[in-house]
């Protein structure tokens, strides 16, 4: 192994304006004519990016106290139910919660509107207590008037994900978009070689406390994400095949930008939210260089029948094929389409690169690395 660099040494280079920072796409292209040893020597940081629908997202809000005060129990924001089962004027709005019967408008839209600085209607009721006598409230809130807007997303930035197809004779409406009958299309949702966790598949540099680009602001990795699974098979290039690790992310939504947080509605499925995430990867050694050199052709995933889940995995494909617009499954050509925006992912990786080059974004060493897991529990029906 060649020379090793520490995160602190890389940060010194960033502070003195000497750091060599490339995006994951740039380093993947460079990797065609270079070796891990040379890249480890030349490149200090690689920036990644992703902008896809991430349902497991939401935001804590503290509304501030009224006079007399209130312990809000049943709350809505623009008629979308908000979880109030925490302290008096704290609440959590989930991205996928909807304002029934208007199921095309939901928490994601409220979050986007608050980030955009718009007024949102808060309505709440309470039983009233000696210390919190107010029993109802109806008012407008916005980004400037609330105390905190803390985005906390329990499961973001999936490391790889399935490809969805539909074998049935009927249209299927899913979180993977509209799937045409009889294998009429195939959808996928990662930014491939730009994707954060695909550039550090063993999470040697990403862990609790890692500073990241999050929705246009600076955020942090809070924990491993829910359904975190490091037990998936790994291909010859060291990349897990299919959905595996995830991240729980936290950041100040007051500083976020609606270019990188976008509400969405998937037909006959529901509301979701596009979240922009970018993670810088320090190129500590040859092993990390080899990881960040990963190309779309080397990242593989499973093709799953969303029309009939009992069919299980139908095949395996790679992201070069997926991005080409066509894959072949059992001899049949299938048109492919992404659901995650590579254009915005590139923008994120590029912004993060510029921030690091300008010395405004300093890298972190994880406070703690993630544990390895064997797999996931399924929910048993025990009654």
């Amino acid at each position, binding site marked *: 192994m060649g020379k090793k660099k520490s995160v602190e040494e890389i940060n010194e280079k960033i502070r003195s304006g000497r750091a060599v920072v490339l995006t994951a796409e740039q380093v993947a292209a460079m990797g065609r004519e270079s070796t891990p040893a040379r890249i480890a020597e030349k490149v200090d940081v690689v920036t990644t990016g992703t*902008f*896809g*629908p991430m349902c497991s997202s939401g935001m804590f809000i503290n509304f501030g106290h009224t006079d007399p005060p209130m312990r809000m129990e049943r709350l809505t924001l623009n008629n979308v139910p908000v979880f109030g089962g925490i302290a008096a004027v704290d609440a959590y709005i989930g991205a996928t919660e909807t304002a029934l019967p208007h199921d*095309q408008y939901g928490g994601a839209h409220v979050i986007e509107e608050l980030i955009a600085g718009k007024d949102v209607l808060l309505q709440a009721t309470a039983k009233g207590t000696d210390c919190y006598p107010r029993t109802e409230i109806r008012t407008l809130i916005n980004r400037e008037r609330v105390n905190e807007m803390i985005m906390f997303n329990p499961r973001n930035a999936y490391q790889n994900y399935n490809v969805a197809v539909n074998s049935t004779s009927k249209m299927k409406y899913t979180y993977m*978009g*509209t*799937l*045409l009958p009889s294998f*009429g*299309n195939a*959808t996928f949702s990662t930014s491939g070689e730009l994707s954060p966790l695909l550039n550090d598949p063993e999470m040697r540099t990403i862990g609790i406390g890692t500073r990241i680009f999050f929705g246009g602001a600076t955020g942090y990795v809070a924990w491993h994400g829910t359904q975190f699974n490091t037990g998936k098979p790994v291909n010859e290039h060291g990349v897990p095949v299919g959905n595996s690790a995830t991240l729980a992310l936290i950041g100040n939504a007051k500083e976020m930008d609606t270019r990188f947080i*976008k*509400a*969405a*509605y*998937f*037909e006959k499925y529901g509301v*979701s939210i*596009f979240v922009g995430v970018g993670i810088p990867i320090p190129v500590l050694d040859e092993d990390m260089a080899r990881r960040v050199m990963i190309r779309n052709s080397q990242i593989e995933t499973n093709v799953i029948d969303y029309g009939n889940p009992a069919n299980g995995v139908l095949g395996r494909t790679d992201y070069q094929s997926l*991005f*080409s*617009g066509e894959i072949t499954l059992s001899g049949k050509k299938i*048109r492919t*389409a*992404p*659901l*995650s*925006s*590579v*254009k*915005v992912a*590139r923008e994120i990786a590029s912004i993060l690169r510029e921030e690091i080059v300008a010395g405004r974004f300093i890298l972190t060493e994880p406070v703690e690395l993630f544990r390895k897991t064997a797999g996931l529990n399924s929910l048993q029906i025990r009654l």
Partner: protein
Amino acid sequence: MKSRRFVLTFPPEATGEPITYNLIRKFDIMVNIVKADVTPGQVGHLVMEMTAPSKVLKEGMDYMKRQNVECVPIDRKITYSEDLCIHCGACSAVCFAGALTMNRSTAELVFEPEKCVMCELCLTACPLKLFSIDLG
């Protein structure tokens, strides 16, 4: 000679005039019907590709106008808010006609209305609801 795609809107009180037949026989316009939605007594729509020299095409369109049939290029009937598009690609998944595709190098959505068959699947497939069809 260029092929162009149009949306023809027939009024409910159609005269019974064989419009498409006349476009072919009287004007020598090459016609390719892409989609037809015509029910007696209701406003009807025909998505049609027409190929003819521009002078002939103009004469055919004037004829349709006299018959109270609105004939509008398809790109004026289906629109999308390009400035709000995040280029996710979800609409391209359902566009079997190939009017919505992803540019591989720029990763941007490319919309070619001339290939549109007005299937309307993009209206619901777009997670940001940026497509709209104006059928009057």
